[in-house]
């Protein structure tokens, strides 16, 4: 059984983001994957709610793909959440449209992974900081999976970035083909860890 993936991409200045260009370039060119560029589509923030709802209904897996700005998402994603996830449709009585759909983040994060813990300068873990999104997914009865991240974008080498981008591509391909188990992935803090372990197993066997 194949899954359809909707990537909700939000970058206010995509043209000068090398990291996200790299990630987007590695998205497999498959009919099952819809890349939806929110800033390009809605430069005036006038989001077409009906169209967005239809897109959501047509896909089984949703990805929020954006840079992690100020411990949150770029404003258009908040606008999208506010407008599209309507009461009685996404949540509340009769709001079952998203019931059982899978959702996770793909994030580029400036600081290194080590900064996101009690002792680091960001003081909170990434999971803690993402809790508003987690809770949003929960209220919409969606299945929340850990984020796929490119950490330390200000410091890491280009080779490292390319490797991460390749993993992103592999991940999406496997999800389309249904080669994953939700419960298995949920054991990891980062989606990256799961995909690395899985691909290592495949190449070993």
């Amino acid at each position, binding site marked *: 059984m194949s899954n359809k993936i909707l990537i909700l991409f939000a970058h206010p*200045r995509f043209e*000068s983001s090398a990291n996200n260009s790299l990630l987007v370039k590695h998205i497999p060119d498959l009919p099952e994957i819809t890349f939806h560029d929110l800033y390009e589509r809605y430069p005036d923030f006038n989001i077409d709610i009906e169209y967005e709802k239809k897109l959501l209904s047509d896909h089984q897996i949703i990805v929020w793909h954006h840079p992690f700005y100020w411990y949150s998402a770029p404003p258009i994603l908040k606008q999208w959440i506010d407008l599209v996830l309507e009461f009685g449709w996404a949540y509340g009585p009769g709001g079952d449209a998203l019931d059982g759909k899978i959702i996770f983040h793909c994030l580029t994060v400036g600081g290194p992974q080590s900064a996101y813990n009690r002792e680091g300068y960001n003081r909170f873990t990434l999971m803690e900081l993402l809790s508003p999104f987690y809770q949003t997914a929960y209220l919409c009865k969606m299945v929340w999976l850990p984020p796929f991240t490119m950490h330390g974008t200000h410091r890491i080498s280009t080779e490292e970035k390319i490797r991460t981008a390749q993993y992103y591509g592999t991940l999406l391909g496997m999800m389309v083909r249904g080669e994953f188990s939700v419960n298995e992935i949920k054991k990891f803090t980062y989606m990256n860890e799961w995909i690395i372990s899985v691909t290592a197993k495949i190449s070993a066997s």
Partner: protein
Amino acid sequence: MNFLTQALIYLTAAVICVPLAKRLGMGSVLGYLLAGMLIGPFVFGFIGKEGQDIMHFSEFGVVMMLFLIGLELEPSQFWRMRKSILGMGSIQLVFTSLFIFVLMMILGLEWQVSLAIALAFAMSSTAIVLQTIKEKGLSLSASGQASFSVLLFQDIMVIPVLAILPLIAVKGLTESRHINSSLIGNLPGWMQGLSFVGSVALIFFGGRYLFVPLLRVVARTRLRELFTASSLLLVVSVALLMQVIGLSPALGTFLAGIVLASSEYRHELESDLDPFKGLLLGLFFIGVGASINFGLIGSKPFLISGLVAGVMIIKFLILFATGRIFKVASDQNLLFAFALSQVGEFAFVLLSFSNQLNIIDREWMEIMMAVTAISMTITPLLLLLNERVIDPKFGLKESSDTDNKAAPEIGEHHPVIIAGFGHFGSTIGRFLRANGVESIILDHDSDRVSLLRKMGFKVYYGDATRFDLLQAAGAENAKILIAAIDPPEINQELILTARKHFPDLHIMARAKSRMDAYELIDMGLSDIYRESLHTSVKLAVDVLGKLGQRSYTATRQGQKFMQYDEEALKEMAEHRHDMKQYVLKARETFRLQEEMLAKDLDHETGENDHSWDSEIIRDTLRKIQ
């Protein structure tokens, strides 16, 4: 009297009478006519018989006016109007002549005399009508178009009429020769026809391939007065050419205007000749006023007043019927019929020509000329009467009969008044209505008014610059007045009136251009909306998008550019007063545009935008490591 004294008299009379007339809402034409009467031989007697000469000289103003009209009319537009020009024009001319001919025959005049008078009286005054229509901003309305068509046809018909008159002159044909000043008058008919075609061709090719290149050379010298001289030279030479071959100079310059309408110097020519036209026309009207022979009127008051009434009633009825046939709406038709009901300036020419041909004797000519002058003087008064009394009653009643519910009740109050409901105002009205805000609309196009009423809009018909109409629309209790009238001068007049009488009313104004916006800023307005700014920036933003730029970035650049442009507008509005030597608008526009472009070079909205750009963070981190 020497030249300076004369100039002093004319100018003083004009400067006093015209603003006074305008202030009383009578229009400039009546002001000039009154000025002429005052300084004429029968009131103060500052000028004597030279009124006629002045008129003769200043008829050149009419010639210039037709040139300017031609300039505003592109050939394709002219072609589109051919049906109404030929149709309305010929119906009006034929039937008016016929009825006046009968009237004259009844008076016991010979048929030749009657015919000459009938043909002369069928003409209306291009000078009065077009000036009035322009002042009222009605050029594009149905009445404006109808008036223009009929007047143009009359101007064309002056030529054959001038040709016919010698044929009906039974006596003194030998004498008439010398007045036929045209060089080709003695040539056989086919040669005359050929020279006519030849001169039209000359105007066409000369205008396009000789005059425009000449203007290019002149423009490069950057001598402003030389450009004005060239413009005058063109009009004078075309007029002279027409006179030589015995055609109407006005018609010739009109053709020249159309030829040059598509040239790049159209606006320059317009702004250069406009003051000359205005002054000469003013002088012409003063001449008409001064030439009214009050002595003659005093000796034959009943005959002359009867003739004026009879002729004007005939003309009015036939014009009204013509409008009906061509389905002009009643309000518009009333205005059209009233506007053209006078005898025009061509009558002076045709009457004196007939006198020279011995068709009509001196006394009758003087009587008829008095009738002409009086009818011209009455026209502005009639129009005033129509505007204030007849039309509001008749027009409003007529329209509200069709849809009584939608007609606004006096005393009904709405927070918003929209003055002018063309493409600009209508968008505002529709949007407000879609958001539950009903507004009162003021518009002076009766066709549009009746349509809007059918659609359930609350529309007042009339001139929004009038205090009483604003008051009737509830300006006292309204919160916002949207000044969205198309011609900037009228819009500004509205703003002035509204501010004077309703100081609490908040005004939000449409500006047609940057220049217009400067003037509104000078008036102290702060809510100014340039009609092209948002649209053109939006288009430019989309161009960036089509060229591959991210649309959100392009949108932000557009927003920043608009903000920058608004700030620059305010700054330059003050700055422009430092340069007093630039008086004429067209020139000033170019200069300000140049300044604007220079300023843009220092301000690149695209650069210095570091939002969401992590390059800086990366660089800084690299440096400290």
